[in-house]
């Protein structure tokens, strides 16, 4: 059971996860990661843009690979686009698996791939100017862990 979505408005990861866990009551392990807009560095807002024909299919592909690679009973992958304020959730990935290690690795794998391979472009509003976020070398190092 998978649920992959691009969201254009604010969402509550905890009510989403509560529902996910009800569906996967008998899975031994549920791992979840929620990424939020950081409040540091004077960031007033974050804007995520995407490209409809590529972004969602790209997320679906990451999900398929994770389901194939790890022994999962469920995978949830939600990603915001648009404008967000500090403290708002950007991304939520949750995995249900018979064993802890599988659920952990699946979430880690999906996050690494979402961060470095999914078609998202970010800019931050700081001091009333928008600044594009560049790719990071660390992200590519993270991706290599799964080769």
């Amino acid at each position, binding site marked *: 059971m998978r649920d992959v979505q691009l969201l254009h408005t604010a969402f509550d990861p905890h009510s989403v996860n509560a529902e996910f866990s009800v569906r996967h009551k008998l899975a031994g392990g549920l791992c979840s990661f929620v990424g939020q807009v950081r409040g540091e560095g004077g960031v007033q807002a974050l804007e995520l843009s995407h490209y409809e024909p590529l972004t969602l299919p790209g997320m679906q592909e990451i999900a398929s690979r994770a389901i194939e690679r790890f022994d999962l009973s469920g995978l949830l992958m939600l990603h915001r686009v648009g404008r967000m304020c500090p403290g708002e959730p950007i991304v939520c990935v949750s995995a249900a698996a018979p064993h802890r290690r599988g659920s952990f690795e699946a979430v880690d794998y999906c996050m690494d791939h979402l961060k470095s391979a999914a078609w998202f472009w970010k*800019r931050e509003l700081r001091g009333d100017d928008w600044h*594009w976020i560049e790719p*990071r070398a*660390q*992200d590519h190092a993270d991706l290599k862990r799964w080769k």
Partner: protein
Amino acid sequence: MGVRILFLGPLADLNGRNELTVTAPLDWTRLLDIVSPEMKAQLESDRVRIACAGKVLVHKADLQAVDGDEVAVLPPVSGG
């Protein structure tokens, strides 16, 4: 209909506008001719990818957009 060209992420800023429509067909050589010298340099960089009709091209020089296609110019995705 023609061919719609979309500039994504920071390339939208560079271009001053995030899309333009040109007559079909559109190949790689003509795309490089149409854009500004600054955008041309970006397009020629290995960091920038091209998608045509929803598929990312393995080789940008293979671009062959026909009437109704959307061409997307994709800069590297942002860091985590």
